[in-house]
């Protein structure tokens, strides 16, 4: 398959879904309790948001260079 420009929407939603799965698994095997979610959820969302922002900005840069 040919590689294309970063698709930011796919990236962000893919990371969110994997993050939700990971959090559920951690709670299920009792590594992290329900209270741990109060920390994990914001950390997850902020890091995914930053990843999306960085991807968008780098995409805009490459677009401008063309």
């Amino acid at each position, binding site marked *: *398959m*040919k*590689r*294309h420009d*970063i*698709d*930011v*929407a*796919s*990236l962000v*939603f*893919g*990371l*969110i*879904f*994997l993050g*939700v*799965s990971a959090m*559920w*698994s951690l709670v*299920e095997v009792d590594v992290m309790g*329900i209270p741990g979610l109060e920390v994990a959820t914001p950390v997850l969302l902020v890091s995914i948001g930053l990843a999306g922002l960085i991807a968008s900005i780098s995409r805009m840069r490459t677009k401008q260079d063309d």
Partner: protein
Amino acid sequence: MNEKTSHEAGVGDDLRSLRRSRDERLLAGVLGGLAQRLGIDPVILRIVTVVLAIFGGVGIMIYAAGWLLIPDDGEDRSIAEKAIARGGDSPEPATIWLAAGLGLAVLLAAGGTFSSGVGTVLLVLAVAGVVVMLRRGDDVPPRDAHADTTTDGEPLGSDAPETQSHGDLLNEAQPDPDLLDDARPEALSDGDLPDDAPSDVAGVADDAVPAGDDRDSTTTDAMSFSGTAATAWPDPPDWPDSDVGLVDFDMPEPSKPVKRSGSHLGSVTLSAVAVALGILAIVDSAGAAVPAAGYVVLALTIIGLGLLIGTWYGRSRGLIAWGLLATFIALPATLVGDTLDWDLTGEDRTITIDQLVEVPQDAASHGMGRVRYDLSELELSDTNDIALEISQTVGALQIIVPPDVDVTVNATTGMGHIVAFDEQAAGHQDITVTDLGSDGEGGGQLTLDLSLQLGEITIERADEAGAEGQRALR
């Protein structure tokens, strides 16, 4: 700028083609438009929405979201898009983030109604239903403006108001090569028409009507424009939009034809989900304890991986809708219970325990309904130490304890509400409460281990429950 719209047609495209109806309008036309798109009676959707509104107000939030996010008939941008991206170039990112934000708000609102639980389940069913019906709508000729622009010679859909075709041409024809091919003849035929009004659609339409006999279906379009303009849509201020559209049709020459469904990533991922769920089901039946939500989360994980691959290779945006659906389902599935082994027999009874010998030694299990343990007449001495272990699937579990006994309660609900003396807890809860009664320490010890998947647990002192007990007897 608009490259996003060239992605394969998915639920997103279906949602973007939604319009609030002008003909079927009670409030803002949200349900009328959705019903038109789905090809069902708006009354059905109205009933569903009212039901959703009664159970936790979710229906109201969904309607409000639709009002803000779905463009009005004949317009290409919603109220929210106009407010946020005023004059902005691409309205789409704004729509996506607005939809995500409102989705979160709906989720939080639903979270507030977990004590009933019903609202959440209905919400999940409603979202799933709409998505499924939109997908199904792809197989039959769509009833929206695509029919007007893509199927030459076919009479304009009687369900779709002709006014809509214009807004949708503006909205979708530009980035979509299929539509472009069909739209261009119309633009050309406009060019063929008398030179005195080259870009004035109203003028074109007026000219086209008398000359209509030897023209092809594109003229039918023009005729319907004039007909609409004369009857249902007399407001002239909307016409300038169409000028912009006509100019735009001439501009874009697609550099290379974009294949509508060039990627199999979405279908490959969903197939992988099916295979994985099947394997998990085999593992489950082989004896491993797989929680109900485990299935949903496994699907969510694979959808997430598919989307990550789609970030760089292939197209997988259609998976976003599936992932959101799985997330919505995962939440109640997690809260409701750890396994699917539920006792679902109906029960409605009172168990009275007046003497020590009547106290059950084994754990008691109940199905669905109202179960009431009345221990109010049970006499305990200071040396007595008894325990009750009760589990129930759905309903109300009420325990009435003797006035003076020292009681320790360990209660847990998957989704519900616990009232233990003066303590209250709601949601996915696990609480421990100790209450010594009116006489302080002494008078025997009673330990209650209670668990209820869905519903309400109530623990009361006999003197408090007396009045209520009298009422129940009558």
